[in-house]
């Protein structure tokens, strides 16, 4: 079973790449862009048939490796 995870920077944490992307978009004429925050997307194929159980395992993986909880939040989709 494939479980999808999005990892994003917490609010207030500096995101220099997001800032550069926002400025580039503004420069390209997308003047309505106020802010861009860059994150990560993971697709974890877990050997598990029960979705709830698979998600519990992935949550543990997020806490221990996929996200750094000092600066990042994760969301299991």
């Amino acid at each position: 079973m494939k479980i999808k995870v999005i990892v994003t920077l917490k609010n207030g944490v500096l995101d220099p790449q997001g800032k550069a992307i926002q400025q580039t978009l503004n420069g390209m004429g997308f003047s309505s862009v106020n802010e861009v925050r860059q994150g990560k997307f993971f697709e974890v194929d877990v050997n598990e048939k029960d979705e709830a159980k698979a998600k519990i395992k992935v949550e543990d993986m997020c806490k221990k490796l996929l996200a750094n909880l000092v600066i990042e939040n994760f969301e299991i989709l």
Partner: protein
Amino acid sequence: MNSSVIIFPGSNCDRDMDVALKKFGFKNEMVWHNDEKLPKSDLIVLPGGFSYGDYLRCGSIAGKSKIIKSVIDFAEKGGLVLGICNGFQILTETGLLPGVLQQNKNIEFICKNVFVKVNNKNNKYFNSIDKDVLELHIAHNEGSYFCTDEELKMLKDNNLVAVSYCNEKGEVNEKSNPNGAMQNIAGIFNKEKNILGMMPHPERMIDKYLSGEDGSIFFKNLLNNLK
């Protein structure tokens, strides 16, 4: 004194560190990341580089490698663990030091000499060092130190900010902050001050004809403190 330098795939300052440690009298051994046991050591060094290609987050994969369990065990028993650059990133990823090293504020790889102020000499690393400001080298893309407000308070209350970016006179200000690090933090200790993580590379400053000698001061002093 015995030291060990851990080599991860992608480490690239391991040999420089080996040269530096031996030059000042350490009997150094190189340890592969897939090993599980550490040789008898008075000092463990996690060197700079790009362990595991900086995949996922700098230091995150190395922070889960086989040898790290022994390093954590060694550190928790009071053994000296020094993490330089990527080594500092690994120490934060293992949780041995608080906070995280983020991408430099200006999104540039910074490679230059900097000055750092030694804030705390009451430890094995800086005790008796006869300089308050050291000229060292930095070379990193992710060196902007960040931690939570609570962690910052803990660091300040316990005087655990080991070194801060400053100018030649030792003034810590925004202009002397190369990478956007919170409060110019260049290196920190754990509470017991046996673990030191810092972005600057003392091993690159051990030859007056090539670079400078403030790294020599650091290593000579460290060895003396361990004797």
